[in-house]
């Protein structure tokens, strides 16, 4: 996997300006938006009853934090999200391992079924889950878990089938048993790819959870927004929306950073990554610089991978 560092696209070469200036440039878009929002409302370009100024919204957020209500709602939402993710991981990773490693035929046969299932609209499934699990916590967790399963499963399948064959051969030549091979070679080598699936799943879970909370619960961030809307507390709507967006943004950035940390592939020149997913022995044309340098909106990428496996 040789990748010359000089293969940066020309468009990106313009960024050799001092770091500070680059950072200022990067912030300018968001700052400009914030200023525009504040001005538009203050100068009454838009009706401030419908679009309160950013400062008003921030004050509302501050009040929510001060009253402690926000923390409670965030904890409720986070608990549900984590439970859903855990459910997805517990089902999808073992299933992926078994399908990819031990029952390749079943995988071939099941493939179209899994794809169809993954396409089932989670919103239209919610009533079905409601019928099964009543309207308690379990519905939210299963809905969210359902959403989490598919990206994790598809990425696990790809991760395990594309473990570097050299690693497998080396492991076998050291007379590792199948169990050891799985535990000490295949799983560690799959972690970077698996994590991509986990990141996508986390994005989807966050999206789905807020939606589920808006459609019927008490408590949670989605409920906070929905409740404000029902009571015509317009600053509350904006505060909730801004918070959810900020949290999503933070989650996305944090997971990408973690992912880079786990698999140092996003850098420029990397000779061999442990567990390289591209058979190193196959000398093809050098791969183009990957898109991972550009933060791609993760939650949308799930299907692309499914289609290409």
């Amino acid at each position, binding site marked *: 996997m040789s990748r010359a560092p000089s293969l940066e*696209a020309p*468009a990106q070469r313009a960024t050799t300006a001092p770091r500070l200036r680059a950072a200022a*440039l990067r912030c300018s878009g968001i700052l400009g938006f914030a200023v525009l929002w504040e001005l538009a409302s203050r100068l009454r370009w838009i009706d401030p009853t419908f679009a309160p100024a950013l400062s008003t919204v921030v004050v509302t957020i501050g009040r929510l934090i001060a009253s402690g209500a926000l923390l409670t709602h965030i904890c409720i939402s986070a608990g549900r999200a984590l439970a859903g993710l855990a459910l997805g991981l517990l089902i999808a990773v073992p299933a992926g391992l078994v399908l990819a490693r031990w029952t390749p035929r079943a995988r071939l046969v099941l493939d179209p079924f899994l794809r169809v299932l993954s396409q089932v*609209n989670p*919103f239209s499934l919610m009533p079905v889950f409601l019928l099964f699990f009543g309207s308690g916590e379990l519905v939210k967790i299963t809905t969210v878990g359902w959403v989490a399963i598919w990206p994790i499963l598809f990425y696990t399948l790809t991760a395990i089938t594309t473990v570097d064959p050299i690693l497998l051969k080396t492991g076998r030549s050291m007379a590792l048993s199948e169990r050891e091979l799985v535990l000490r070679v295949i799983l560690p080598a799959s972690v970077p790819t698996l994590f991509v699936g986990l990141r996508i799943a986390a994005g989807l879970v966050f999206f789905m959870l807020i939606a589920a909370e808006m459609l019927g619960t008490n408590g949670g961030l989605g409920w906070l927004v929905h409740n404000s809307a029902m009571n015509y507390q*317009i600053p509350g709507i904006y505060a909730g929306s801004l918070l959810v967006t900020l949290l*999503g943004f933070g989650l996305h950035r944090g997971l990408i950073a973690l992912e880079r940390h786990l698999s140092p592939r996003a850098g420029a020149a990397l000779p061999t990554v442990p567990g390289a997913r591209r058979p190193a022995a196959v000398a093809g044309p050098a791969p183009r610089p990957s898109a991972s340098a550009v933060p791609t909106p993760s939650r949308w990428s799930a299907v*692309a991978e499914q289609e290409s*496996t």
Partner: protein
Amino acid sequence: MTRREILRAQLLLAGAVLALWELLPRIGWIDPVFVPPPSRVLEALVHLWGLGLLGEHTRLSLGRALGGFGVAVVIGPLLGLALGGWFPRLRQALEPLMEFFSQANPVVLFHVVLLFFGIGESAKVFLIAWLCIWPIAFAAIAGVANVDPELLRAARAFRLSRPALFVRVVVPAALPSIFTALRLAAGQSFIMLIAAEMMGASSGLGWLVVQSQESYHAPRIFAAAGLISGLALVTDRILLVLEARLIRWRPPLDEGRVLLAGGAER
């Protein structure tokens, strides 16, 4: 295992699943109120169709989805190509903002959008367009950034002017990545459509699901859910065929690269 064997196994499995699904509720191992057998679902589908409800709601839903998606298909690539290929500094300034916007959960935005657009059709179309624009724009930017430098060098050696370079090299090279995003966006637009219709609409397939849920009509829930999934699958197929038609020069798929790009690029 040959293709035929796989196909036979798949058909067998599908048959077995359907048979079980039909049988278990009938003999009472699963409560048919919750999980109606497929025959009942089909019956509900035909019945709804006969009432003229199904066609009408499907038409309305598809209209909304296509409206939003259409807006995104026009704006997304233009935005991405312009930022990625033409204004690198502006791109740097706007990319974090765009990322922020793309994280703005459209379900949460729903109430904000309602304040501006009212509860009519335009709110739904706006939400779907909002959801779809960002992945497409990002894919276009990534596609431009990942144009093979060899191609660019070759084009420069031929002294292509900047517009010509853009139209004949950059855009075609970015097209595969844009198309992938289009397919993702189409899938997402269906999810969002149903969500929007469930939250505030008096028509459409999402409304039909909620309506059936409130009247505890499980066969209808399954029928509507099945129809929605079917529509999403068909849309995806159509885009796939379109992609194959439009992009003939695409290099053979390299699974490694797909993974390296985090699934966003093919």
